């Protein structure tokens, strides 16, 4: 399926640049052109179809659905809906206010807010195509699990006082959800492709650039020794390094792919990816508008610890 991109990369790296296939530079350049063309093509196709599915789940609908569930079912539903409901990090505050104001418990709101960025469906589709269905499904399941567990812990801690007071005083108005026709959904999907690709292509290129450098130059023995399955601390280190970093999941996948080619353990690589997407400085700054520092700390700790757990689970079973 990807031979077109392979041939294109051959052409650029070996014919146009005149590089040798067996050299480090040749290998890196080839990997770079192969991966950028392949990933940007796949992304465009996948975002289109995913956006059609997403158009059926606006946040307003999710809110209505969720207000029917309590306790564990609520956490499970919130986490599952987090997978399909579209929202960008700049919408997390209105979503948070909308959920809490309509009486959805805080922990269930968090189950949604945690899973949503981790299981970015675009990243998920890329995981499926690059690493296969087994790893893709495991990532999906563990992302949902992190959301459920994180939300339950936050609920159990009774953090309602740690929400900024004004949130409870707001009475959010109801606004109509527009009825979409097929035509509207297709236009929405097209616009999403344009918007997302124009936003993430930089991350893809930077990610693949770093991946390509790792591919050609990183010392495999060293990485396998320090970040391989035999170093028990590697998962913790990967998560701590990943937390403050903000990266698009799409951009980190090529890095993860290259690192794994060099012997880095799967769990270590994936928990790094989860940490960069689920927790980041910009996301925390936005959330600070609605929740107090104590709950921020709890949120980061709970999610961080859950991701570390997932990393160990992956390293253990793969």
């Amino acid at each position: 399926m990807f031979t077109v991109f392979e041939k294109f990369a051959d052409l650029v790296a070996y014919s146009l640049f005149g590089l040798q296939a067996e050299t480090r530079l040749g290998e890196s350049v080839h990997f770079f052109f192969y991966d950028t063309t392949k990933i940007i093509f796949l992304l465009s196709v996948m975002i289109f179809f995913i956006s059609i599915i997403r158009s059926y789940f606006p946040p307003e609908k999710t809110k209505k659905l969720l207000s029917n569930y309590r306790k564990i079912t609520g956490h499970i539903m919130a986490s599952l809906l987090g997978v399909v409901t579209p929202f960008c990090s700049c919408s997390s505050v209105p979503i948070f206010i909308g959920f809490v104001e309509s009486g959805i418990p805080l922990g269930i709101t968090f189950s949604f807010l945690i899973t949503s960025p981790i299981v970015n469906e675009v990243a998920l589709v890329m995981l499926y195509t690059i690493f296969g269905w087994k790893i893709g499904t495991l990532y999906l399941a563990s992302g949902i699990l992190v959301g459920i567990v994180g939300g339950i812990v936050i609920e159990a801690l009774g953090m309602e006082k740690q929400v900024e007071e004004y949130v409870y005083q707001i009475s959010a108005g109801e606004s109509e959800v527009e009825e979409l026709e097929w035509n509207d959904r297709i236009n929405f999907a097209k616009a999403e492709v344009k918007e997302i690709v124009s936003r993430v292509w930089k991350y893809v290129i930077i990610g693949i650039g770093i991946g390509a450098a790792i591919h050609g130059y990183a010392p495999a023995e060293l990485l396998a020794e320090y970040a391989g399955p035999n170093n028990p601390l590697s998962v913790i280190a990967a998560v701590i390094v990943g937390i403050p970093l903000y990266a698009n999941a799409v951009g980190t996948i090529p890095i993860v792919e290259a690192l794994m080619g060099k012997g880095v353990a799967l769990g270590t690589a994936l928990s790094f990816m989860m940490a960069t997407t689920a927790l980041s400085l910009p996301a925390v700054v936005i959330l600070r508008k609605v929740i107090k520092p104590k709950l921020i700390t709890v949120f980061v700790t709970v999610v961080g610890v859950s991701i570390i757990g997932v990393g160990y689970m992956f390293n253990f079973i793969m």
Partner: protein
Amino acid sequence: MEITIYGPGCKNCVNLADNAKKAVEEIGVEAEIVKIEDMKEIAMAGIMSTPAIGIDGEVKIKGRVASVDEIKELLA
């Protein structure tokens, strides 16, 4: 007529405001474009996904950047 752009000031909100401006210019109506960037006010308008556009206080399209043509239709 008053056009309201709801959004915390991210890139999409700027694009939406630009589209609204173009739409107003193209059909030549008297309209004022107001930006609402405060999260509280956005939430109070019942909006959960930004950017959104409202005409005379009524939210019309949310969660995506409405095109110039769509806005023209709203204004007509």
